[in-house]
């Protein structure tokens, strides 16, 4: 009798703690969400991108009437730095975010990766698309995820996921050695990749104090702390130098 009551109370406790955990995990949407936005800039004269020689595969070369250029440091007007991943690296209290149903898309076009830097959530579907006439192999080299390496001819569907957070996984095509890209994987939805104007915005944040990190493939990482209140928007800018 005593054993049964102890078991029942134990089970109730366990069920309660599980449900509390689930509620704590449902972090989206947030009441009175805060946001952090800003711009990433490059200080100094913009490095000149080098031309890529694609002559070993005529199907790649013919996609570029003027030669394609490297994308490791892309500086736009006013020093705007493109392809920088900006994300919350510390300060989140909730965990176990459900990944969005919308897949992230990585396209191989003109024998280059579009986008050059892609960010997605752990367990979010990644659709790999080959829009080129040639055959690619897509080969991420992760440290914290399983490595895979798949050949993809034109038009063949390919779907993958990454299980764990990692900033950022280098992606290459062994067939076309100039092809390089990065995939950043997060266990939360608070990340952004800067576009041509170098700007980013981290939306729907719960109020709190956060460490914001900016990652660039060649220029490294920078961090800043920021505290945002309910419905507040704060600006955080980053400047990278070579």
């Amino acid at each position: 009798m005593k054993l049964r009551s102890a078991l029942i109370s134990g089970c109730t406790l366990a069920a309660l703690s599980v449900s509390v955990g689930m509620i704590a995990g449902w972090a989206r949407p947030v009441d009175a969400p805060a946001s952090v936005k800003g711009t990433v800039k490059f200080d100094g004269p913009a490095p000149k991108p080098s031309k890529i020689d694609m002559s070993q595969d005529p199907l790649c070369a013919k996609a570029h009437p003027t030669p394609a250029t490297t994308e490791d440091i892309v500086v736009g007007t006013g020093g705007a730095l493109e392809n920088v991943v900006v994300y919350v690296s510390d300060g989140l209290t909730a965990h176990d975010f459900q990944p969005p149903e919308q897949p992230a898309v990585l396209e191989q076009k003109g024998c280059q990766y579009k986008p050059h830097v892609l960010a997605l959530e752990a367990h979010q579907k990644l659709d790999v698309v080959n829009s080129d006439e040639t055959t690619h192999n897509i080969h991420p080299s992760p440290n914290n995820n399983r490595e895979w390496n798949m050949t993809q001819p034109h038009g063949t569907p390919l779907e993958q996921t990454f299980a764990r957070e990692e900033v950022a996984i280098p992606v290459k095509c062994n067939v076309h050695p100039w092809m390089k890209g990065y995939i950043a994987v997060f266990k939360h939805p608070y990340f952004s990749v800067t576009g041509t104007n170098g700007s980013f915005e981290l939306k729907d944040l719960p109020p709190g104090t956060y460490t914001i990190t900016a990652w660039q493939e060649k220029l490294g990482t920078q961090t800043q702390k920021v505290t945002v209140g309910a419905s507040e928007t704060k600006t955080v800018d980053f400047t990278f130098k070579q």
Partner: protein
Amino acid sequence: MRIKLNRTGAAVMLVFLPVLLMWSANGAAQESRVGKLSGNAKRGKALYVRYCIFCHGPNGDGQGESAPYLDPKPRDFTKALFKCRSTPSGTLPVDSDLYDTISRGVHASGMPSWAPLLRQERVDLVAYIKTFSSAFEEEKPGAPVEIPAEPTTTAESVQRGSELFQSMNCWSCHGKDGRGHGPSAATLTDSKGYPITPFDFTSGSRFKCGESDRDMFRDLVTGLDGTPMPSFAAAMNADQRWDVVHYIRSLSAHKTHARLKIEPIGK
């Protein structure tokens, strides 16, 4: 006899039951099963220290004393990344894959065949090798790929395979003539950053993951993880893979070697 448990006893049980379950789950990861044989990591460790430690190192990270002198480098077991698998790219191997590699050895590397060891000993080694990475506790191996019956080699199948060798860009690494001198060959590295050479198909048929046509077919499906050799699981159907196997065979005059027979266990 009736076991009496008071409230405290039951509470203690409730707390320790998950711990007990976790412990037994860990215990399962330190075992291996190949055919009818079960391996034991503790016994495997003694064998590892005796035979494997010089190259693969005490921590299983491939940094043994002989490692600086070897090319290709000894496998780093802490990454749980294996070339020779029957499972899809990006998944863990099944126990028999590791057993087969230990038994077969890896041609053109420092890894010899360990067929002279007892089968039980090789299965014990598999159990110990799996303890170097937590991946074997966290994930399950992939489902082994299916290998359908091989059609007969014909002039047409070799011709179709030759066309696929071009359209699938195999030539980029392996070269238009299959000699391993394709335009991308010089740029290739393994996942540790060490230079790696594409296979020269005219040199014979002693492939790293087995010599038979079925082994070649399987390599085309799984790819060799940790190397630039990708999986063609999504890229080709079974008939096309057999065509490529037939074409690659046609590049080599040496079709047969004195093969070391490795008897499968319990099959």
